[in-house]
């Protein structure tokens, strides 16, 4: 099993969600986050006082999937979240040791 965590542009969230649903991903967790990578921040100006805003708003989404789905998931995210401009985000992939469904006590792939 794999755990995929992706940082994307906030306005791309709906497209990514749809692309993932289409390939059979059944659950997604979304968090509003702030951060920076190569895009860096921007400056804001209030009555002449300049503030550098380092951390830009992004959305982090997390999905747990079976191994066979990994390539499709990464591909779906890459395609749906891309604008071609700097700041599109990143996808991180982890090995997932175990999953438990709290309600039924199912484990492993059954619990995904």
């Amino acid at each position, binding site marked *: 099993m794999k755990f995929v965590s992706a940082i994307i542009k906030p306005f791309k969230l709906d497209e990514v969600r749809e692309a993932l649903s289409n390939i059979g991903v059944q659950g997604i967790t979304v968090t509003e986050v702030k951060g920076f990578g190569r895009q860096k921040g921007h400056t*804001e*100006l*209030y*009555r*002449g*006082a300049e*503030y550098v*805003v380092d951390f830009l708003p992004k959305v982090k989404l997390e999905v747990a999937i079976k191994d066979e789905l990994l390539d499709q998931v990464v591909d779906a995210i890459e395609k749906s979240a891309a604008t071609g401009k700097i700041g599109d985000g990143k996808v991180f992939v982890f090995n997932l040791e175990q999953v438990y469904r709290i309600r039924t006590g199912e484990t492993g792939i059954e619990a995904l």
Partner: protein
Amino acid sequence: MKKILSILALVTTLGFGLMGNTFAEDAAAPAATAAPAAAMPEAAAPAAAATPAATDAAPAVAAAPAPVPNKGDTAWMIVATVLVLMMCVPGLGLFYGGMVRQKNMLSVLMQTFMITCVLGVLWAVYGYSIAFTQGSTPFFGGLDRLFLAGMTPDSTAATYSKGVVIPEYIYMVFQLTFAVITPALIVGAFAERMKFSAMLLFMILWFTFSYLPIAHMVWYWTGPDAYTSAAAGDAANALAGFIFQKGALDFAGGTVVHINAGIAGLVGALVLGKRIGLGKESMAPHSVTLTMVGAALLWVGWFGFNVGSNLEANGAAGLVFANTLLATCAAASSWMFVEWFFKGKPSMLGAASGAVAGLVAITPACGFVGPMGSIVLGLLVSPLCFFFVTKVKSMLGYDDSLDVFGVHCVGGIFGALATGVLVNPALGGTGVYDYVANKVAPYDMVAQLTSQAWAVGTTLVWSGVVAYIAYKIVDILIGLRVSEEVEREGLDTSEHGERAYHM
């Protein structure tokens, strides 16, 4: 609790101590009392007494019936008063509140709200009397209206037209709204770092020793009805406030409100020092949206402020309305273009600041300049204020948190001086009305600018000195600044025990 009681005791002592002093002076002087509406008998010496309640106390004038307030004027003044109150709460509170950091939002709202309430009470107790009755000097009024003594629904106050009066109760509450918004303006200069208790005590001191005398000096006169001949005019002039006697024009409070508050703000910013982390941490406004809402409420309310200062619902009120609207549009536009040009982007905060700068500048001028004059005034004031808030402030290094000095004092000074020029009938102004000749007097630019400079200079020095002493007294008694820990935590939770937002 003990601390609060001792503060209250102090306030009471100070308040009544002042009254005692003024009262003593008054008793020593030849009992001269002439309230605004008094009809001045032609032969009367300055000592002649006439109270608004006894309007038939002028036997020298052929038994003219006492003027009765016009219902239209009265209705307009009631509305105008409510509009100015809306400028104070919530207008100014939101305008300032949006510009501070989230952790200090409530402290600003609370300060403007409570200044309005506490000083509103003091206005009725002694403020109105000291500002708007005849005193023994041209600097302070008397004590005739202490606790609003003798005021009845039939009492009247003079307007700018002979034989036209409005109910004195309405005049009193209209002036109340001015007396509370002026101190509330100062809050912006020391926002985010002053103790609430210190702020209250300072405001009471400053209101008593700066606002009241300046209002008296600029606005107190016996009303146009006294100007029946050159001699009577001179006699009436001698009873008016110090700056009024100098011939200064201030229609709705450029000196009394904006320069007065602005310089007290600058002194405050200097005495209190900078906020912790200024220049290192982000002090960006937490909600420019609320600042825009506040600025918009101020703008709407300002029609009560300026047009209400005309005291009558007539053609002159129409001119004041047009001027107030046009100057603001022009100033917001010019701020936007200047900012766009020099800083690259037109900002909402800049537009709101420009609108307020325009309103400030047109305040002394609104009844004296023509519509095109008001546009010129608006176009010029914004670049000047912009230069002060973006350049001069950082050059001199004072931390006027919300630019009370840069916008209100600088804009007020510019407006006061420009009034002296743009009042010129040749430039579309109304000219200065001569109540003795009952026509517009010949215009003399040097004389008028000198008068305006007297008003500006007197207010700057008087208010600056009073403010400095008041800050120092408060610093010794309770300390001006909150502790570093409180400042970092934010004034909302530590001073008021609540938070503006639960998100």
